[in-house]
């Protein structure tokens, strides 16, 4: 197998696995802070925050472990890329360390171990810093990735991209919309983990009164986040994409021919050569209206772009549309749950509680699908219209070496994931720790 493909497989695997954890850290981080905040007046929230703090500790550890690989992987596997973009791409990674990761790690240590060593106010502040750190971390990583999508603030000189305007590079055309979209996805992921665990405890008849408080909080938090994801965040991201990366937009939306009154597809099966959508059910004009504000507006299709610049069609279409379907599912399930909380019948509805529990992985699946649409949609470029992925790999690293590391990291990740699930299950089965007075 050729080294470029292997390097891509390795990157997809390591980032895909890593990307299970930061969304949970961000989502749990904010929810823990809010619990600590409500916990000033309500002891149940204090207990809930304490419990999920421990859950975060476990999840964060795996996030850190898999994140170390990411920091160095550009150099080990993508050295030509690193040389080409180093003048721009390294700065956000370093800024992430200085402004975000130090904050998150240091204050998580204080939050978990410092309960009896600092005042309640300082302790609460430490949970806020964990959430803020995780979120700033997302910002700088998305700055770096968005620059690959919509590069700005640079000039090509001396065979590399050289910085001309720092702020233009940081706030390139896709940074902010993608940041809000991603962070909101993280909040939804946190909410579903929280709600699922609480639902499980109610089902198992464990500390039901506290679990109800936790579930109510997560459902409302998650519902707000899910609604915001449709409008404005998801919508704005789509509009930005149509403006800045038309071939990626065409691929993920299934626009294989230029058309007016382009539809939003509810269902379709894309095939390659010739590009075509089979069994298509769509709402005519909706996509044109969403993207350009006019139901009859024309949208450019794949047919207008040179063949060598077109991203894979099947994967982008399928992953994007499944993400959207999941997004709709989140709203539906949380709206029903919220309604039943209002009617005070959710606690009896075993079926819905079970659905909430089994929905824990779904927002993470949506994150992965969205990320696949974003990154595969950028192909064949590693930096949009500037550098092709095939020209970016390390020249001094052989296919055998990459294959070896894929197997090694793959085995380690499977091990870590299995252990994490077992330990989380054990922690959840032990239930909430009813804090004695001296630790509050």
């Amino acid at each position, binding site marked *: 197998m050729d080294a470029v493909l292997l390097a891509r497989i390795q990157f997809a695997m390591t980032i895909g696995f890593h990307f299970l954890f930061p969304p949970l850290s961000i989502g749990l981080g904010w929810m823990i802070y809010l619990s600590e905040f409500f916990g000033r007046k309500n002891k149940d929230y204090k207990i809930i925050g304490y419990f999920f703090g421990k859950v975060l500790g476990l999840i964060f550890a795996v996030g850190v472990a898999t994140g170390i690989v990411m920091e160095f992987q550009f150099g080990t596997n993508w050295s030509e890329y690193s040389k080409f973009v180093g003048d721009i791409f390294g700065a956000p990674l370093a800024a992430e360390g200085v402004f975000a990761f130090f904050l998150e790690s240091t204050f998580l240590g204080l939050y978990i171990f410092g309960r009896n060593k600092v005042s309640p106010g300082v302790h609460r502040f430490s949970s806020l810093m964990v959430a803020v750190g995780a979120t700033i971390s997302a910002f700088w990583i998305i700055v770096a990735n968005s620059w690959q999508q919509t590069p700005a603030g640079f000039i090509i000189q001396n065979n590399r991209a050289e910085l001309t305007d720092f702020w233009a590079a940081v706030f390139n055309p896709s940074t902010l919309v993608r940041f809000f979209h991603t962070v909101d996805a993280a909040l939804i992921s946190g909410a579903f983990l929280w709600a699922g665990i609480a639902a499980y405890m109610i089902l198992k008849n464990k500390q039901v009164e506290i679990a109800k408080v936790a579930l109510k909080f997560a459902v409302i938090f998650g519902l707000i986040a899910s609604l915001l994801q449709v409008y404005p965040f998801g919508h704005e991201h789509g509009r930005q994409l149509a403006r800045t990366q038309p071939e990626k937009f065409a691929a993920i939306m299934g626009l294989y021919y230029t058309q007016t009154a382009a539809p939003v597809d509810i269902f379709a099966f894309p095939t390659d050569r010739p590009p075509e959508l089979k069994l298509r059910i769509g709402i005519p004009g909706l996509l044109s209206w969403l993207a350009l504000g006019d139901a009859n507006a024309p949208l450019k299709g794949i047919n207008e772009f040179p063949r060598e610049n077109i991203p894979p069609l099947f994967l982008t279409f399928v992953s994007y549309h499944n993400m959207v379907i999941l997004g709709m599912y989140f709203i539906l399930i949380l709206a029903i749950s919220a309604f039943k909380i209002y009617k005070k019948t959710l606690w009896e509805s075993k079926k819905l509680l079970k659905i909430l529990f089994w929905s824990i992985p779904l927002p993470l699946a949506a994150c992965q699908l969205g990320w696949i649409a974003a990154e595969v949609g950028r192909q064949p470029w590693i930096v949009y219209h500037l550098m092709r992925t095939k020209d970016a790999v390390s020249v001094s690293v052989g296919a055998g070496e990459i294959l*070896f590391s894929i197997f090694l990291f793959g085995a380690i990740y499977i091990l870590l994931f299995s252990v994490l699930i077992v330990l989380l299950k054990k922690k959840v089965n032990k239930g909430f720790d009813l804090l004695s007075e001296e630790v509050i």
Partner: protein
Amino acid sequence: MDLNLIWFLLVGVLIIGYAILDGFDLGVGMIHLFTKDEDEKRVNLNAIGPVWDGNEVWLLTGGGALFAAFPIVYATVFSGFYLAFVLLLTALIFRAVSFEFRKYSEEKNKKYWDFAFGVGSLLPALLYGVAIGNVLKGLPIDSKGAYLGTFFGLLNPYAIIVGLLSLTMFLMHGAIYLTLKSEGKQKEKMIKTASNAWIAFIVLYLLATLMTFFFGHYLFASVFGNPIFWVLLVLLFVSIVYIPIGLKTGKTGYAFTASSLTIASMILLMALSLFPRLVPSSFDLNYSLTIYNASSTPRTLFSMLIIALIGVPIVIGYTIWIYRIFRGKVVMSKDSYD
């Protein structure tokens, strides 16, 4: 002072910060590998539990800063050391999860995570030195800056000696840190471990210096006329000599400061003798990657400098604050690692 020089120093500061802070974590991990007593194990884990993660961020930030300031070095060295890096990352992954995984594991499974913590600390402590040894003796880099070496080429006697040197240095540093955190019998043991590691460190340091005359003669070319070299050498000498004195007289806090200064002055001496090269070429010194031919543009270096000037003082501020909160002997609570 130009921006390239400033960034040479700043990357040095990050490496020193990492070596001093995560250095004692690595040392504690190596000691943990040979700790039998359960109570002592708990002290090991909780001595670094609240802070090790923040300490490791120095490495990640150092990696990011190297990428941003000297991308050619980041790209050439990291891809050149591919398999060594895979090994290092494997070790760091296991170390990172070992604390939490051990805490929530069944009693009978804890030993596996003890082992992961120990080996996950020992390997990096060794590999950092091996990497530095290879850089000091020069890497096979051709006139176009391409790396032509192999994995087994990295395992040469000189690099292994430097690797053992860094291993004993971190072992000593970690043992001294534990004397601050432990009491009674364990503290006595740690004083002994630190003293033994100190002897091994001296022997290896002399051996490595002697070997450097043969393998990296160019490193001595311009240092003797430089007053900074002599200042650093005196600082190194005084701190090394003070370590056993501090340990014997019970001034372990000062001994820890001395061992931190030892690490700092060693790294600074190395940086001084490399300057202005970052990665010397073993084919021809003229092919070396330097702080000028491997750097980012002045605009990027300047932007990064602003980031560093805003961010680093804040980081140092709250890091000191957190260390003060957790200062003193390890006291177990329900939140501790057990």
